[in-house]
């Protein structure tokens, strides 16, 4: 996987994102206009409560002997309820989630906001876009921990099914964690994850998921969150963030967390980071598969000739100096540049 923004963690970058809470057959009315500056807690969309399908009588027909179309054909007269998640019920307003400038309004009523953000891209996730206050999970003693409702909780380690169920009942809108087992994730989502990742229509696919948006920085398994990611998220604890969990291999969608940078960080000479993706000596990389999956290090040497690996395969390779000082030789195809 190549991160959509280039790296998994980008401390400062300019992005344009449509603020849209998702929800199958949801409609919204924008409350702002292009060019307007918005704050993260400012309402930008009002959601429709219901939707009715227009009758077909007004649509053109073939010039043929008359054909009586069945009543309600083309969708019927059913009402469609709002199927959003915990970021607001139908009729409620949706906060911007980002500080920035409105640049466009989409056909469905979404609002495109341009913002200077710190971005974290995950490997795997699920759930609609939500905005919440970034809250670091300091203790695994669930009974004593205080979790503010409407928060986006950051757990620097692996999650399990029990923790997800507790999170769901606590009123938080999203979780950013390092990893989870496949069984626990599918058990919580009650869906086949392979089918979910293969979906063409993410809104349809996510319509029946639990109303809790998830982002896993490391993916499946028990890998802990890298320190650089934890440090960045800790730095912005208490800030409003925008979290999107939708993951689709077909559509090239991956989960992301965006945190608008505070005003004091956005100086006059502020420059966004330009992520370089080429694998070169001294580049920071993450090993994305195999024996050292999740390990982070720097490229120390790039071999000119293909190396042979335990599988017998010959591949172009690099020697990586890991964070613990050890060195490993891995195929280039296992490396993701992260800095």
């Amino acid at each position, binding site marked *: 996987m*190549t991160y959509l923004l280039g790296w998994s963690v980008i401390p400062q970058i300019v992005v344009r994102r449509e603020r849209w809470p998702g929800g199958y057959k949801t409609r919204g009315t924008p409350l702002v206009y292009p060019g307007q500056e918005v704050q993260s807690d400012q309402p930008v969309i009002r959601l429709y409560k219901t939707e009715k399908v227009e009758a077909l009588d007004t649509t053109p027909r073939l010039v043929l002997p008359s054909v009586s179309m069945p009543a309600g054909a083309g969708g019927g007269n059913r009402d469609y309820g709002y199927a959003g998640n915990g970021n607001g019920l139908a009729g409620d307003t949706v906060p911007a989630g980002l500080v920035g400038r409105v640049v466009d309004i989409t056909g469905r009523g979404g609002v495109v906001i341009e913002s200077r953000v710190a971005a974290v891209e995950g490997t795997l996730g699920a759930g609609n876009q939500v905005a919440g206050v970034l809250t670091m999970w300091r203790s695994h003693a669930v009974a004593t921990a205080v979790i503010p409702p409407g928060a986006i909780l950051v757990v620097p380690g692996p999650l399990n099914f029990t923790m997800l169920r507790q999170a769901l009942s606590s009123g938080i809108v999203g979780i950013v964690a390092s990893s989870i087992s496949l069984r626990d994730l599918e058990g919580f989502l009650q869906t086949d994850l392979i089918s979910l990742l293969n979906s063409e229509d993410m809104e349809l696919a996510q319509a029946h998921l639990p109303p809790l948006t998830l982002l896993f920085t490391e993916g499946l398994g028990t890998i802990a969150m890298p320190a650089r990611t934890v440090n960045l998220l800790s730095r912005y604890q208490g800030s409003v963030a925008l979290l999107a969990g939708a993951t689709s291999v077909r559509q090239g969608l991956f989960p992301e967390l965006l945190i608008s940078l505070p005003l004091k960080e956005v100086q006059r000479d502020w420059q966004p980071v330009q992520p370089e993706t080429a694998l070169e000596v001294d580049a920071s990389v993450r090993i994305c598969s195999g024996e050292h999956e999740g390990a982070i290090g720097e490229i120390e040497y790039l071999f000119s000739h293909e190396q042979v690996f335990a599988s017998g395969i010959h591949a172009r390779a690099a020697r990586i100096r890991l964070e613990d000082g050890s060195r490993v030789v891995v195929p280039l195809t296992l490396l993701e540049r992260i800095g």
Partner: protein
Amino acid sequence: MQTLSHVEGGPKPASSQKPTVINSILVADCGTVFTKVSLFGLVEGQFRLMARGEAPTTAAPPQGDITKGIVQAIENIEFVTGRRFISQGHIITPEEADGDGVDIFITTISAGGPIRLMVLGAVSPALEELADQAVSGLYAETHPLAAPSYAAHSQPSASSGNTAAPQAANASPWTPERTALEWERQLERIREIQPQAALIVGLADGPAGPHPLQEACQLLLNMTKERAEKGVPQAGKRISVVYAGAPQYVEAVRHMLGNAAEVIRVEPLISQAQLGSTSTAINNLYNAEVIQRIPGYNTLQSWFSSTPVATATSLSSLVRFLAQHYAMNVTAVDVGGATTTVMFAGEQGEFMPVVHSGVGVGPNVGEILQQVGFQRIARWLPFDITEEELREYVLNCMLHPHVTPAQMRELQIAQAFAREAISVALEEGRRHKFAWPDTDLILATGGIFAHTARNGQAALILLDSLQPKGVTSLVLDRTMLVSQLGAVATVAPVAAVQVNENDAVTHRLGTCVIPFGNLPSGQVALRVGIEYHNGRQLSVDVMSGSIEVIPLRLNEQALLTLYPAPTVDVGLGPGERARAAEEIDGGLIGLIIDARGRPLVLPEERRERQARLLQWMQVLGG
């Protein structure tokens, strides 16, 4: 990056025109996961493969430009050859006096995914089958949706009590509620499919009359309206419709669809005779809707010496050439990250292509598991594996399709999926009533084969999945050239032939003898007599259920005599001795005798099956 001296897509400068003398060719094959570039040049008057490079395909973000991956792959070639091919982000063409640049640059593309095509109207099973056949050699997925009125007349309602097969004349019409539900179901299906184009079929001569055509248009209008309301990326764009229905209603269809669709009329699809026009129209749509929308296509177009070709089309040209040139039946297998292709070309001109766009060993590996299930994958593994581990492998593969299996366990799992990918493609072919005939040459290409650690692994994948019978040869395309050469042939046919003979099909694994029929369990199935050039003779008894490899090196030949058991056939009838009229060729593995039986049945007991798999791998050097 500095800008070009001419407008992208505009008139090319004279130096970009096709040269009269071709001394060098650069070919890029842009797959879903990897981009492969090959450099062909003249060596002692013959075109040869000079160098090749490979890099991840960069059509998706963050690069979002397919040319960047091509440039990266070319830079590998520059490193190897010391020549420059890129200047200011563009191909240097023609070749210069100092050796920099190339005379011709060609691209084949399989990135971008298949075109998703709804088949609408009076979609009978026969028409559905014809639509499938029309796209069998293309990167296309068909999704049939018979119009509600057609379905209503084809399926008697339950309330009528008529449970017989379609009896249109006596069928009771659907109730309005049933019809409304069917409309909603179809709209829901369209939302799931997210189609890029539509094919309307039906002659309006059935009990439903022209209503299915009308309803097909209605569905398209509803879809367009909903997209506009949702503000999806396709909103505002006219959907392309191939109209292969009743000719008297084509103008009415155009009128009804109005500005919502661009209607392309082709011959009414009635039988196989009309497949060509439908297939051509869909192929053109694929070029327009998929290839030309790949990010970076405009830049790529300015580099072209000729129009980019779909990789499957290029491969089919080469396969048909091989069959005719060498007067033999050829089966080609290409297992890619997102697509699996199996093509048969006969020496008499027969051609059966199956391009299964949803199945591959990279991002689409999940589709294989969904289709065949855990057991069919696990049966190929010589070790225990849980379903959860396999699903985790699949998910990691989908999320990280570039990953090279560095551990043997991962490699064997990948190869198990490759077997089932080929099997799924063959099953797709059988659904189109393709009867896969015996083949003289099996050609394997694609990343999974090019990067196999040992030749024996590739041989075993082919024998396990294709299950050939009789006598055949296995050839491995380690340099992934065969899918490029068809496109090369369109501009430099001599070069294509020479590279094919000198470099593309050189990894000959060996001749395979596969006895079939009733192989006596625990007994000798076949005695093989071989006479080498130096006069040495060898006789080998091959037991039923086993694989044997008899030494016969590359470029070595020998005379072969086969003595099958009374109930065993090697192509001339049960028990009939066979002596090859000509010498057979050796290969990198040797002479392979696969006496495991056809169809191949693996032992049911897990430990025995795993032991057998390991034994077969070891015999073949896998």
